[in-house]
């Protein structure tokens, strides 16, 4: 297992440090309060990893950001408040969420899945030729990132492998031309090789498109490999925040909170 080579902390795009601002975020399901007040910021163009053990509230954080779960506090994207909006409304603002377990539309073909991603861009008032050409160009671009999707364009999404479905889910989200991409456990249930490939693509998307990414991961190693900054969640609170490289170096922290032995992996 070779470590991802570049240290991205140095390259932190610091132009707009307050692109995504989360203040005092509380959220939960019914009686169960999961998030107990989160504060963090994500700069424009940054990859932010949210790490932590099972049940810490990682997925809930993403769901609160995109509106799937109601939250209290404040979440602003480029100055626009996101809390209190439905997922459909946050999607209009530019938030694309790739849900846990991928959520591809299995009876639709791969291409149709991608076109659903462009749903908002092809609305009744935007049926111009220019917009259609832009969607076609984006399809092409996503096929370039994920060549396998091109091969399987006419296949039902349900017949894809898990890795391909994850690629499709990310590609579909990119069709939205999001300014903020939320990825919920992209490595879930995937073989290590596929996961590695996937994270390389996520990194490429971030670098080439400048899309801001918040990624929730169990696999801290992988996430820290592509992230600029990382936050560690435990029981609904942030227990550690900092540049990804620093968190990676801090072997003890990693062992305590992430349940991985960073040093031994590095040595080996």
């Amino acid at each position: 297992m070779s470590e991802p080579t570049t240290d991205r902390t140095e390259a932190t795009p610091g132009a707009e440090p307050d692109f995504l601002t989360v203040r005092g975020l509380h959220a939960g399901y019914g009686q169960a309060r999961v998030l107990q007040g989160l504060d963090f910021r994500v700069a424009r163009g940054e990859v932010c990893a949210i790490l932590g053990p099972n049940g810490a509230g990682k997925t809930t954080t993403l769901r609160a950001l995109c509106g799937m779960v109601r939250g209290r506090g404040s979440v602003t994207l480029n100055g626009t408040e996101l809390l209190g909006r439905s997922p459909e409304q946050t999607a209009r603002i530019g938030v694309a969420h790739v849900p846990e377990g991928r959520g591809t539309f299995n009876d639709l073909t791969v291409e149709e899945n991608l076109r659903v991603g462009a749903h908002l861009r092809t609305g009744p008032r935007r049926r111009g030729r220019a917009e259609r050409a832009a969607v076609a160009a984006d399809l092409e671009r996503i096929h370039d990132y994920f060549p396998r999707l091109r091969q399987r364009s006419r296949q039902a999404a349900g017949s894809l492998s898990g890795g391909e479905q994850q690629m499709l889910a990310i590609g579909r989200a990119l069709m939205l031309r999001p300014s903020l991409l939320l990825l919920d456990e992209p490595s879930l249930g995937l073989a290590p090789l596929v996961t590695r490939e996937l994270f390389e693509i996520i990194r490429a998307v971030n670098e080439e498109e400048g899309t801001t990414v918040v990624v929730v991961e169990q696999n801290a190693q992988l996430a820290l490999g592509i992230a600029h900054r990382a936050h560690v969640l435990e029981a609904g609170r942030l227990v550690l925040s900092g540049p990804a490289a620093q968190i990676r170096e801090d072997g003890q922290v990693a062992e305590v909170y992430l349940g991985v032995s960073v040093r031994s992996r590095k040595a080996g």
Partner: protein
Amino acid sequence: MSTITAALGSDRARRLRAALTGLLAAAAAVGAPFYFAPFQVFQLTMVLLYAVALAGLNLLVGFGGQISLGHGAFFAAGAYTAAVMLDRYDTGHLATLPVAAAGCFVLGLGFGVPALRLRGLYLALVTLSFAVFLPPLLKRLQSVTGGSMGLTVDKLEPPAWSGLAEDQWMYFAVLAVTAVVLLLARNLLRSRVGRALLAVRDNESAAEVMGVRLSLHKTLAFAWSAMFAGVAGCLYTWVIGFVSPDSFSFVLSITLLAGLVVGGLASLYGPLLGAAFVMYVPSVSQDVSEAAPGVVFGLLIIAVMFAAPTGLAGLPGRVRGALARRATRAATLDRTPGAPSAPGANPKSLAEPGPAAVLTPAEPAAVDADPVGAPPRTEKE
């Protein structure tokens, strides 16, 4: 690039085949009334008419993933709209069609609202209540609807220039409307709205995250679906020339749903098969057992669902799949384990593991994917 050109090539072949099949079907449909006896032509007309209603129900149930036990009521609404217009205002047949369609569309919008909050059995109950209360209501509004005596109106008369008999003329009129409606349904499903509808059925929350407005699309599905049922009802009045509350009891709603399921949910030609089932099976079961045609009808439904869980429309695919599986099994038995299987053994290369599946043998999705038995994309065939 080569894959793209290959895809285009197969696309053209498929289109050619579809055009040929369509042409043949059209020729058969046009020729039928000159070949069959008047009563049989009438039966075919009824099949086409029911197919319109089932196509509408299919939009809602098959593609929208919702349920309605009240479509008989939309059918009745369309039929009565046409009958009242013909009876009181003498508008002529053609004018009744757009009015019935628009009226039922609006009615469907209204019923789409409870569909936003309810699902499954609850939605079924609410729609069923509509089907149950409409016939008594029609009986009450005697001054307009003729009460329980119903209304007798003029059937569609063939114009002199056509030289056609009445049954033939009605057949062609209904055929034209049915063709337009089925094409409309097909195009609707391939449009942005249709994709959104299917996406909502497959995964509601994922669709919403993509910016699909759930409420809008669910309500619209109801409205479109009700409109189709209303058009079918209007055609019914044209063909039968008589409406009464008892023609549209809630049994009609249930028959429509049963017909759709038997014909094949989420399939474009399933409604036609289902309509034929609804039309012919009761008379066949009457022949089998005069005492209890209902029992025979029910047993036949069970038999179809047992043999073809995806409906009659899915039957050819299932048979093909079973044959392919048998062929693959025979081929693998023939050779030593571990050797690559012959390329011809599996004609549907869908099941062939791609490079990703090789890389990720532990992925459950790759193993579970059974493209043969599942109903996806039948409308593309």
